């Protein structure tokens, strides 16, 4: 991945090194183009510079999103190169720097009118009263499965199409012919009448002087030659030979190493630390006390870690020191009894209908906290020298990280430079609001200045100081009418839930309510966010209703999707792929689940067996409707990975509280699925004309309920809490 220089940013819209830099913002996001009023009519159109064309005909696409394995550093350049008619072999990618001109701002607006699906991480920035986005220019987020459907669809395509038109216009002027007689293909403009041609690189300097068209001509799907083809990812070769650089690999000359122990109970402050025992150890530079943590700085990570482990810091007492998962569950259950429930969705008269129903069922479900457990533990390297602060790290929002660093350093954001690296996993852990490790690293670097400091969290620190997937208890009531169709759906659960708690099925009387529940555990977005819990709840309970009605669970769902043809097609496809109607191999059973999230609809069938009292998932079939697919192989990989990520929640992982703190420490007590646990996965995509949906997250939610439903089919036991465990009789 190339490096960005500040000089190039300042030169936005002009010439950089003799090449074309195309200013974009004003084109793609002009109000008349996407029909959304800007927050402020006086707001000048900000330029986003996403494309650079060098004299040697190399095309560089500057992507305002981080790469964490989702392939966005390939798929977004594909979308731009497609409309540009670029020679893919000469396309390079750079990640944009943390600068306001790369903020999601204008793209965020595009989500707002479609209130149905504002990415979760953006909701906190939306003032729902006015539909205005606040702090618009503070975000440069990669999350919400939004890069391709947002930045790509609304931005990259237009940037490519506009640049193509400018290059053709430049050629036409040079040759004194009509632009309409010229064509562009494979990074070259040609004029058939005269036989003349020129490369994009030869034309770029002239093209940069032209005004970008407001409505560039864009291709239709059937004209695509790059999009829709399985293009090898640009970042993969460096990931098989050790040359890919992550935040933890950064080498800043003269740096020292730090590791840290923060208060084990969230909310506690650092008390006393006796540093005398470690100060004299070889290589120890400093013991740094922060408000709620103590760090050791040394000439190597190992020495810092050894010294930290010999310190016995005290932390202040909190009101939560006796909290356990059991006491918290009681509090959460009690909260559900309160009258202070917020309506998520309601239709008909659920309570009255339930009262008069001949057949009614109820059930309680629960899911625990979960850690992200990215393979690369949290880390950041910081150098504070004079009036400047530099940070090397891997985050899902470098612009937000810059603000965190500036605040910790006591500097303006302009004095901070974020060098964002590839991420050894994100999954939501490195989103804004969860950049505590950057705050810590900057504060330690202030003490050590001008020496650069690399702060590395131990796995134990990482496991115990995450921003966890919320634990939720959910209670359901449902009824079946005389025809065997569900007539009532009532749910009440902790947290927010939002759209994730609604269902695609036609049930006439619904009452879905959330209950705010306070506790001291830090919460964050965990791949697929609320769908990770509510997909399990709703797809399990609809399965219970099917059995209560005496119906086959696939047909039961299908009958309820007459008004949702896309959902029904996805459900049918997954069932067909799995051979649903035919009996599974002896000793196995199948379960099915359907979840829409982040604009995509996914149905999964899981085939399970009990092996030595444990649930073994042999096969998973997944059908996906995400509109169309930009890079089919990457799309496939995202669904495969999502299923394994969901499998970790379904069968393996659980964060519990003991003495107010997280009990788990490492992968020995927070187990993960391994190769032996991985099912064979088959994925198929349905091409629809629907708007593009995301792919990073939608593979996750259906797997847990598909497995639970399969276990019910196999054993008759309904497992209602995650991770799923067969209890010995």
């Amino acid at each position, binding site marked *: 991945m190339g490096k960005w220089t500040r000089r190039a940013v300042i030169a936005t819209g002009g010439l950089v090194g003799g090449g074309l830099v195309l200013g974009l913002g004003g084109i793609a996001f002009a109000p008349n183009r996407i029909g959304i009023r800007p927050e402020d009519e006086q707001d000048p159109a900000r330029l986003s510079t996403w494309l650079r064309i060098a004299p040697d005909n190399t095309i560089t696409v500057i992507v305002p999103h981080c790469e*964490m*394995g*989702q*392939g966005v550093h390939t798929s977004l350049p594909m979308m731009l190169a497609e409309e540009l008619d670029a020679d893919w072999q000469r396309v390079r990618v750079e990640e944009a720097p943390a600068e306001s001109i790369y903020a999601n701002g204008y793209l965020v607006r595009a989500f707002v009118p479609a209130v149905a699906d504002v990415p979760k991480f953006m909701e906190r920035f939306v003032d729902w009263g006015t539909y205005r986005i606040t702090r618009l220019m503070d975000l440069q987020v990669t999350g919400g499965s939004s890069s391709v459907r947002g930045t790509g669809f609304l931005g990259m395509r237009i940037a490519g199409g506009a640049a193509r038109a400018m290059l053709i216009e430049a050629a036409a002027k040079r040759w004194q012919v009509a632009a309409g007689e010229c064509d562009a293909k494979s990074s070259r403009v040609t004029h058939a009448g005269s036989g003349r041609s020129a490369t994009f690189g030869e034309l770029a300097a002239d093209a940069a002087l032209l005004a970008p068209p407001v409505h560039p001509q864009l291709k239709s799907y059937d004209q695509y030659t790059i999009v829709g083809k399985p293009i*090898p*990812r640009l*970042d*993969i*070769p*460096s*990931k*098989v*030979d*050790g*040359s*890919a*650089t*992550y935040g*933890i*690999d950064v*080498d800043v000359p003269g740096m020292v*190493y730090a590791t840290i122990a923060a208060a084990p109970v969230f909310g506690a402050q650092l008390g006393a630390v006796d540093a005398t025992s470690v100060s004299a150890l070889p*290589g120890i530079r400093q013991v740094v006390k922060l408000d709620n943590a103590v760090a050791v700085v040394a000439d*190597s*990570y*190992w*020495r810092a870690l050894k010294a930290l482990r010999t310190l016995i810091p005290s932390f202040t007492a909190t009101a939560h020191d006796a909290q356990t998962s059991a006491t918290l569950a009681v509090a959460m259950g009690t909260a559900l009894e309160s009258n202070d429930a917020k309506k998520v969705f309601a239709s008909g008269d659920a309570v009255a209908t339930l009262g008069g129903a001949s057949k009614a069922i109820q059930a309680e479900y629960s899911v625990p906290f979960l850690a992200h*457990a*990215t*393979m*690369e*533990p949290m880390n950041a390297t910081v150098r504070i020298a004079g009036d400047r602060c530099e940070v090397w790290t891997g985050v899902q929002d470098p612009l937000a990280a810059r603000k965190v660093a500036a605040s910790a350093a006591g500097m303006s954001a302009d004095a901070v430079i974020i060098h964002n690296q*590839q991420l*050894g*996993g*994100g*999954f939501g852990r490195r989103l804004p609001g969860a950049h505590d490790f950057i705050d810590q690293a900057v504060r330690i670097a202030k003490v050590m200045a001008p020496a650069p400091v690399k702060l*590395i969290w*131990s*796995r134990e620190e990482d496991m115990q100081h995450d921003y966890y997937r919320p634990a939720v208890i959910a209670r359901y009531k449902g009824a079946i009418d005389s025809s065997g169709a569900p007539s009532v759906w009532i749910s009440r659960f902790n947290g927010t839930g939002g759209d994730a708690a609604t269902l695609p099925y036609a049930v006439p009387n619904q009452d879905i309510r959330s209950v705010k529940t306070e506790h001291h555990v830090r919460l964050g977005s965990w791949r697929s966010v609320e769908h990770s819990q509510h997909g399990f709840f709703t797809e399990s309970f609809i399965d219970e209703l099917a059995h209560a009605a005496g119906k086959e669970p696939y047909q039961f769902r299908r009958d309820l999707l007459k008004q949702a043809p896309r959902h029904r097609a996805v459900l049918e496809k997954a069932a067909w792929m799995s051979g649903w109607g035919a009996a599974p191999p002896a000793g196995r059973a199948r379960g099915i689940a359907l979840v829409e999230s982040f604009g995509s609809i996914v149905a999964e069938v899981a085939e399970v067996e009990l092996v030595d009292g444990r649930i073994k998932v042999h096969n998973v079939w997944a059908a996906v409707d995400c509109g169309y697919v930009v890079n089919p192989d*990457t799309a496939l*990989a995202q669904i*495969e*990975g*999502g*299923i*394994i*990520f969901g*499998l970790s929640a379904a069968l393996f992982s659980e964060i519990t509280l003991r003495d107010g703190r997280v009990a788990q420490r*490492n*992968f*020995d007590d927070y187990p*993960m*699925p*391994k*190769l*032996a646990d*991985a099912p*064979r*996965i088959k994925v198929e995509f349905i091409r629809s004309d629907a708007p593009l949906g995301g792919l990073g997250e939608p593979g996750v939610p259906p797997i847990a309920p598909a497995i639970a439903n399969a276990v019910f089919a196999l054993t008759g036991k309904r497992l209602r809490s995650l991770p799923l465990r067969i209890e010995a009789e």
Partner: protein
Amino acid sequence: MEVILNVNGESRSVDIDADTPLLWVLRESLGLTGTKFGCGIAACGACTVHVNGAAVRSCAIPAAAVQGQTITTIEALGSASQRHAVQEAWIAHQVPQCGYCQSGMVMAVAALLAKTSRPTDQEIDTEITNICRCGTYERVRRAIHAAALKLSSGDVEANHDGEPAEVRHG
């Protein structure tokens, strides 16, 4: 203490605490950052290197304990001109996502194939226990079989035993 290590064909002298894990010597003293830190307790395999050709989790073995032995890291598994067959298969099957665990995964697989030229799925399950949080396992398995087939294609013995790898998979 001074420790002399034979890493990637070179003799390297480092001054470290006697208990320093090999991982941190590779990463911090020798600048070989392709080998990753994941857990520190040999549970995830991100730190896997070869010691005398065998896969070893370098976070849980002192560097001083492997003096005089042949250590190979991901940086020297193949070369710029000739990647190892496992690396080739990893690219062909587009295995890595975030990629952080893949150095260790590739090293573990290369060591497995060096001793078992055509592993069965069951042998793979037993031997390859590295954690990949992105969930690339489906492709890992496919790429192992592809690399095994390629590595053993010149091996008459291997070609005679049983069905092709593609059939075994599934």
